[in-house]
C-alpha cells in the first residue's frame, strides 16, 4: 500500500541551511517531490480544513524511484587487525544473557567470512544451544553444539575454542547459578578439518550480510546481553576461563589474552574499548543499550556511573535502529525569504503519497514575530513509528476503541526494520529506550491521525486563520540553546502535547519564565517525562520510564539511569520538578472515548483574568465540541495541585466536567487503586484552566487538555475555545508587564 517514504537529515533549519532528503520507493519506478507549507494537516473530509500550501522549490520535480534498504538490528564491529591473523589455537568467551534463545541462529562473537569460509563464529544455533563454527579456508566448515538450549533471561558463561594440535573445536556453557532454576552446564567437542583466521572484522551480536542494494549489512542478530567478551590465544581450561571472565584485570589472569573488551567503558557513546594488549577497539551500530546490568550486578548500586564494574553489559536487539543510512536523493537550501513555519516535502508515487516534515526557524539571530510556536519535536520522536496500538493486547480497552490501522501502520507491521517508538517493546519484550529521526517517521506528517504532530497542526491552522504571526522553534533548538532561544519572544505557545523534556529544555523554559516570558500551554500531559539527547547520537532521544506513570511497559529494574547523560530517568514529578510547578497543572487522568467541556469558576471573574474571558458569557459552556471526543477537555487532562507546586496565586478560571467512565486517573496519582477512579465518579477527573503571573512581568496560561487544540477549528474557527485562546495570545503579545497580585 505504501509506495514511497523518506526522511530529512535535519529537522530544524534556518534560512541558508542545507538539508538532504533520502527517499525509497516500494515498487514505484518514478516519484514526484514538491514542497508544501503545512498550515493544517487534518484531512477529514467533513472538517474541510486541510491546508497544505504549495511552495516553489528548486528540487520540485520527477525522480527515478529506487529501493533503499535498512540494516536494522544492533551489533558492534571491531575492525580487522593483525592480531587476528596469528590465531591458531584460540578461545573466545563471554557472559551472555539471551532474551530470545528460541529464535534461531544468533551470532555472539564472530570473526567470520563466507567466501572462502574462514574464521570463527560463536553463536546460538537453531536449537538455542551454544555453538562454534570454524572455517578452514578450503571450503570446509565445522560446527559443534552444546546441544543444550540456553534458558531465556539467565546468565551463562560461554566459551568456544579451537585446538590446532588436535584439530578439535569445543564449546562450554555454564549457568551462573544462584537461582532455583534446574539449569545444567553443557559442553561438547568435535573434530574440525582446520582453522584459518578470516581477513575481516570481528562482530558482536551479528554476522555480516549484504543488503539488497549491495551495501554491507548484518544478519543473525542476537537478542540479549553480552558482558566481558574475551579472545585468548590457546585453549583455556575451565579454571582459566573462569579467571579471565572475572571482573578484575583479566590480562593479569592469563597472559595469552588477545583482547578483553569492557563495555562499561564509553557508556553513552558508540565506542567499545579493548583493555587488552592489542587495543582492538571498535564501534557499535544501531544503538544497543548500555548502562545495563552485567552478570555480576549485586543490586547494591542502581546507577551505572557508581558501579561501572557491575554494568558491563550491552543489550542488543534485532530491531534496534539508529541511522537508516540512506543516500540523498536531493537537497534543499532554505531560501532567505522562506517564512518560519512547518514544511514538508510531499512525495507522490503511483497512487500513494507521503510527507517528510521539517521545521524552518527564523534567520539566525533574528525573530520575525513576537510569538514563538515551540514545536514538540522531542515528543514527536518519542512517538515516532508508534506501534503499541497493534502490538499490545490491552490497547483497545485502554483507548476504548476498535483497532483501526492506518496504511502506515500496515507498512510498519510488515517492515519491522523501520524501528520502534519509545512506547513499544522490542521483539524480545524489553522496552524501547531510543528513538531516532534518522529514518522515515511515518506518523510525523500531515494527513495522519490527530495525535502529537498532526494534532498540533490544528493550532497552526488556527494561528493562520487568526492572522497571528509566529516563528517556529523546536525542542531540539531549546535543548541546545536554552532560554536564549526563547528570550527574544514576548510569548511562547506550546502544541497539544509537549510531554517530553530534557533537563536543558526544562531549564531553558523555566529560565525564560523566570524572566519576562509568557507561556500559553494549549495542551495536556505536558512536561511529564525526562528524556535525554546526546552529541554522541545526534537525532536520537533516550528515555527510561523509571518507577511510575503511564509507562506502557516496565523499565528494567536497576537500569533507571539514562545512558546519554547519567541522569535518573522517569517522571519530572518524581524528579522534583512537577509540571504543576512549571505551568500550574499536571496530569491527573486520561480517557479517549468522550471528552468533557469547561465551565467558568468564580476565579474567572477576578479582574486579573478578565482579559481571558472577553466576549465569553458568564454561564457559557466552553468547548462542548471538537474533533477529539467532541469536547475541549479530553484525551489527557491536567489539574492544579498545591502540594506539587502550583503557585499559590494561580487562578483556576475554569474546570471541566462531563468526563466518561473510561477516563481514568493516572497511576502517578494513585496510592491505592479503587472502584471510583473514573470520570463519572471521581471529582479529580477534570482539567483546570489556570492562569498566573510571574515576578518578571510574565505569565502562564494553561488549558491542561490535549483535546483543546482539536476544538479550535469548530464552526469555521468561530467558537469560544478559539476566542479564549485568541484573548490570551493577544494579551501575552502586549508589551505591558503582568503585575504580581
Amino acid at each position, binding site marked *: 500500500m505504501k509506495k514511497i517514504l523518506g526522511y530529512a537529515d535535519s529537522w530544524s533549519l534556518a534560512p541558508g541551511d542545507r538539508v538532504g532528503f533520502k527517499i525509497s520507493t516500494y515498487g514505484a519506478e518514478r516519484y514526484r517531490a514538491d514542497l508544501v507549507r503545512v498550515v493544517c494537516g487534518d484531512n477529514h473530509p467533513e472538517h474541510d480544513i486541510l491546508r497544505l500550501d504549495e511552495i516553489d522549490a528548486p528540487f520540485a520535480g520527477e525522480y527515478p524511484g529506487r529501493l533503499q534498504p535498512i540494516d536494522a538490528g544492533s551489533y558492534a564491529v571491531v575492525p580487522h587487525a593483525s592480531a587476528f591473523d596469528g590465531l591458531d589455537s584460540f578461545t573466545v568467551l563471554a557472559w551472555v544473557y539471551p532474551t530470545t534463545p528460541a529464535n534461531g541462529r544468533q551470532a555472539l562473537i564472530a570473526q567470520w567470512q563466507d567466501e572462502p569460509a574462514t574464521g570463527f563464529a560463536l553463536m546460538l544455533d537453531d536449537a538455542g544451544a551454544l555453538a562454534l563454527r570454524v572455517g578452514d579456508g578450503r571450503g570446509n566448515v565445522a560446527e559443534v553444539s552444546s546441544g543444550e538450549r540456553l534458558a531465556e533471561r539467565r546468565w551463562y558463561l560461554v566459551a568456544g575454542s579451537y585446538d590446532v594440535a588436535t584439530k578439535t573445536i569445543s564449546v562450554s556453557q555454564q549457568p551462573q547459578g544462584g537461582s532455583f532454576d534446574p539449569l545444567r552446564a553443557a559442553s561438547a567437542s568435535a573434530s574440525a578439518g582446520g582453522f584459518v583466521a578470516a581477513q575481516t572484522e570481528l562482530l558482536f551480536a551479528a554476522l555480516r550480510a549484504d543488503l539488497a542494494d549491495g551495501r554491507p549489512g548484518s544478519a543473525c542478530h542476537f537478542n540479549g546481553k553480552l558482558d566481558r567478551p574475551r579472545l585468548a590465544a590457546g585453549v583455556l581450561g575451565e579454571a582459566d576461563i573462569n579467571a579471565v571472565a572475572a571482573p578484575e584485570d583479566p590480562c593479569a589472569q592469563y597472559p595469552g589474552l588477545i583482547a578483553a573488551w569492557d563495555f562499561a567503558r564509553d557508556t553513552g557513546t558508540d565506542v567499545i574499548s579493548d583493555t587488552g594488549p592489542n587495543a582492538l577497539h571498535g564501534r557499535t551500530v544501531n544503538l544497543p543499550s548500555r548502562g545495563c546490568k552485567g552478570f555480576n550486578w549485586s543490586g547494591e548500586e542502581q546507577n551505572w556511573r557508581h558501579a561501572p564494574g557491575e554494568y558491563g553489559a550491552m543489550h542488543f536487539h534485532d530491531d534496534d535502529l539508529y541511522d537508516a543510512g540512506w543516500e540523498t536523493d536531493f537537497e534543499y537550501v532554505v531560501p532567505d525569504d522562506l517564512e518560519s513555519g512547518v514544511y514538508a516535502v510531499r512525495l507522490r508515487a503511483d497512487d500513494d503519497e507521503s510527507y517528510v516534515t521539517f521545521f524552518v526557524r527564523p534567520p539566525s539571530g533574528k525573530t520575525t514575530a513576537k510569538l514563538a510556536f515551540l514545536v514538540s519535536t522531542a515528543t514527536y520522536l518519542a512517538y515516532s513509528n508508534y506501534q503499541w496500538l*497493534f502490538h499490545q493486547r490491552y490497547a483497545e480497552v485502554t483507548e476504548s476503541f*476498535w483497532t*483501526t*490501522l492506518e*496504511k502506515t501502520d*500496515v507498512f510498519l507491521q510488515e517492515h519491522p526494520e523501520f524501528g520502534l517508538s519509545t512506547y513499544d517493546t522490542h521483539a524480545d519484550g524489553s522496552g524501547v529506550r531510543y528513538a531516532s529521526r534518522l529514518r522515515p517517521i511515518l506518523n510525523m506528517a500531515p494527513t495522519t491521525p490527530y495525535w502529537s504532530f498532526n494534532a498540533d497542526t490544528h493550532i497552526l491552522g488556527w494561528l493562520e486563520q487568526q492572522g497571528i504571526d509566529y516563528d517556529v522553534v523546536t525542542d531540539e533548538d531549546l535543548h541546545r540553546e536554552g532560554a536564549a532561544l526563547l528570550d527574544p519572544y514576548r510569548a511562547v505557545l506550546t502544541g497539544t502535547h509537549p510531554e517530553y523534556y530534557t533537563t536543558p529544555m526544562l531549564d531553558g523554559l523555566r529560565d525564560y519564565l523566570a524572566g519576562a516570558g509568557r507561556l500559553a500551554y494549549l495542551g495536556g500531559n505536558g512536561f511529564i517525562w525526562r528524556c535525554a539527547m546526546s552529541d554522541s547520537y545526534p537525532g536520537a532521544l533516550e528515555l527510561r520510564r523509571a518507577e511510575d506513570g503511564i509507562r506502557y511497559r516496565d523499565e528494567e529494574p536497576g537500569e533507571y539511569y539514562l545512558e546519554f547523560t547519567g541522569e535518573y530517568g522517569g517522571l519530572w514529578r518524581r524528579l522534583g520538578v512537577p509540571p504543576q510547578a512549571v505551568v500550574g497543572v499536571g496530569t491527573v487522568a486520561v480517557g479517549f472515548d468522550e471528552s468533557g467541556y469547561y465551565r467558568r469558576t468564580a476565579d474567572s471573574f477576578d479582574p486579573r483574568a478578565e482579559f481571558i474571558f472577553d466576549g465569553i458569557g458568564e454561564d457559557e459552556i466552553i468547548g462542548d465540541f471538537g474533533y477529539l471526543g467532541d469536547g475541549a477537555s479530553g484525551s489527557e487532562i491536567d489539574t492544579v495541585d498545591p502540594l506539587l507546586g502550583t503557585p499559590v496565586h494561580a487562578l483556576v478560571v475554569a474546570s471541566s466536567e462531563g468526563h466518561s*467512565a473510561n477516563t481514568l486517573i493516572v497511576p502517578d496519582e494513585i496510592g491505592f487503586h479503587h472502584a471510583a477512579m473514573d470520570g463519572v465518579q471521581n471529582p479529580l477527573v477534570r482539567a483546570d484552566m489556570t492562569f498566573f503571573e510571574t515576578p518578571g512581568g510574565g505569565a502562564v496560561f494553561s488549558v491542561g487538555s490535549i483535546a483543546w487544540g482539536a476544538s479550535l477549528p469548530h464552526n469555521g474557527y468561530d467558537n469560544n475555545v478559539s476566542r479564549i485562546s485568541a484573548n490570551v495570545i493577544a494579551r501575552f503579545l502586549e508589551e505591558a508587564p503582568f503585575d504580581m497580585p
Partner: protein
Amino acid sequence: MYEIDPSKTELADEFRDNPDGPYSPELTLVINRMRLMPMAERHVLICIERGRRWMLARIPAARGAPIERFEEQVFSDHAVAVQELFRRRWHTLTGEELA
C-alpha cells in the same frame, strides 16, 4: 472471567442500535472481552480513506508478517464496519454466528 453467552443475542442488538455507547453493564463486559482477545485472533479495520472507507483485516501472530486484508470487505459507513468487527469477534469467541 466473564465469557460471552452466545444465546444473549439481545446484546448484539443493543450494539447494532448504539455502536458508540454508552453501553449497558453486560454489553460493556462483552465489548471488553472482545477487546482483550489475543492480537493474532483479532479482526481489525484499515482506514483506506480518511472518514470514508475502511477495509476489514486481521493482524498476524508475528511481527513482520503480512496483515491479512479482506479486499472484498470494504465499508463506506464506519458504523457498519464496526458491526462487522463485532460479528467476527463474536464468532471467534463463541463459535456461533450472529444472524
